[in-house]
């Protein structure tokens, strides 16, 4: 049986409007064969989690440049868990200091991509770490 395509919700939490990174990554993932739903800007964690559940996403990619990542990324993870979707893989990127990366990972963010990461690295990581939900052992 052919595996269904992996679905990724790309979202911009927070109030900053720097969507260049989110769009470039969304397009690279789409070109790599994933199904990508881009939520647009200025999303609250609640809006992102609702989108992820409605779209039956396997992963959520978060992009942020406003400095509010320590507040907003863990909130997305927590809301997914509360709504029974704790197995949705959450990854993110943006202007995020190195020392914040372990904090985000401890909060349940699977991977954080900082500036200069090649698109190929992100695509490869998604390919290796995201599986269609419900198919996992």
């Amino acid at each position: 049986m052919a595996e269904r395509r992996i679905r990724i919700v790309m979202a911009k939490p927070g109030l900053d409007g720097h969507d260049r990174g989110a769009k470039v990554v969304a397009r690279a993932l789409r070109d790599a064969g994933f199904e990508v739903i881009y939520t647009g800007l200025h999303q609250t964690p609640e809006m992102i989690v609702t989108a992820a559940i409605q779209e039956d996403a396997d992963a959520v990619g978060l992009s942020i440049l406003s400095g509010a990542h320590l507040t907003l990324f863990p909130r997305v993870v927590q809301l997914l868990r509360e709504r029974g979707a704790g197995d949705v893989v959450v990854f993110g990127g943006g202007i995020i200091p190195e020392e914040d990366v372990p904090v985000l990972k401890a909060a349940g963010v699977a991977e954080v991509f900082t500036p200069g990461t090649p698109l190929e690295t992100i695509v490869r990581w998604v390919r290796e770490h995201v599986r269609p939900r419900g198919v996992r052992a």
Partner: protein
Amino acid sequence: MSDDRPREWKERFTTISDLEIAPRYGPEDVADLDYARDLGDPGQYPFTRGIHPTMYRGRLWTMRQFAGFGSAEDSNRRFHYLLQQGTTGLSVAFDMPTLMGYDSDHPRAAGEVGREGVAVDTVEDMKILLAGLPLDRVTTSMTINAPANVLLAMYVVAAEEAGFRRQDLGGTTQTDMLKEFIAQKEWIVPPRPSMRFIQDMLVFGTRELPRWNVLSISGYHIREAGATAVQELAFTLADGIAYVQAGIEAGLPVDAFAPRLSFFFDCHNDFFEEIAKFRAARRMWARIMRERFGAQEMRSWWLRFHTQTAGVSLTAQQPLNNIVRVTIQALAAVLGGTQSLHTNSMDETYALPTEEAVRVALRTQQIIAHESGVVNTPDPLGGAYFVEALTSRLEAEAARYIAKIDELGGMVRAVELGYPQREIAEASFRFQQAVERKEKLIVGVNAFTVPEETPIPILRIDPAVERTQIERLRQVRASRDPGAVRRALDAVARAIAEGENTMYPIVEAVRARATLGEICDVYRAAYGEYREPAII
């Protein structure tokens, strides 16, 4: 020999915006140029060589470092520090909730207060921000757009309460909503009502604030979002055309407000492309103002501009290399004839800059001004075959875009159609692909990398800022006259509904201690919130 062409180490030589560059340039490439018609001496129409006859021999550019973080007190301290260090103009960065018109205690502000700039909720915050500053002598540039009318009103009221007269206040509000919809994406209401607020500000500024630049037409954010140099030039000038049109439609004679329009450009790594962009911008704007809008005053023809070095060109890898990038960019801005300049700090891909990093950035400008000798004569590159040919090339390509936008019905319509947004997303993706294929090399990122990066110190914002800010906001709300606030907000709503100038009631609402969020809620109620169609 089978091939007598000199060997070259690349197939194509291109600018960072992917314009192909010929093997060499000579007299044939500038044969069409007429010195008097197309260049003119510095200070002469069409100002390709600069707006002043003496340029930096008369006066250096303003060294204006953008700053603002944490609380109003923190930012005020940074301003006093910058003035002591020799900066000559202030520039305020606001935090995201302020940019979007939310108070600091709004649920959407959580985690964002004071992060990327200073939080301003009421005129009380503005008074702290400006405390002790000589507001009749320094000029203040405020990077604020969607709620620019509220922040301008706060500046006026804070200054008046500190004893200054409004006619003596000098500075700039960015107010460029078209580039927000195109690139920077901090908005409140949709494009058309946004243009109406700008018309009210233009009229208010013309009547009340003779030294204030209400609008700074900005290519910076367009470029940072991934536009090419040509797109930055074209979309910025097309935005300018839309604003001039709006001012005329508001009943202002063009020469009454055009002299106080200013521009704001990016300066990226491609040295000659950037210099050509600035020169082309001046020539194009002079002709647009004179020929298209019939402006008579020389000052209306001038394209005066601020430049910021390209934040997007900085790398997180080997951050000290960024000092070199900023130096090259700053030099291009000066050779391009900028009126003011912000140099980025080496650590800005991590966080807001530390004081030491800011000092190096400012010193870079001072070294260019006082040690490099490039200020000794205006437009020192004028007449160089390559520079003139590239200037004409950028002009021709940008003119094609402007014609396309005119054809769509002008920039407001083009924005509603998502046209510039799509062009930029396309260009930014193409650039990223070129980087991935190593057709474009970025030192330290896809070439000349080091395995272990040495960490540099970064600035952390104290999370207590959010709590104290919310506390102060609540105190202001508790200590004001609620009836007066209600009446003042109703007056704003009435002006919106009845087509009166909104600036006057906004000033009174601010004086009554209405908050930023309360005033912007009046806008949201009247016009609804803008939602962007998500384009990838």
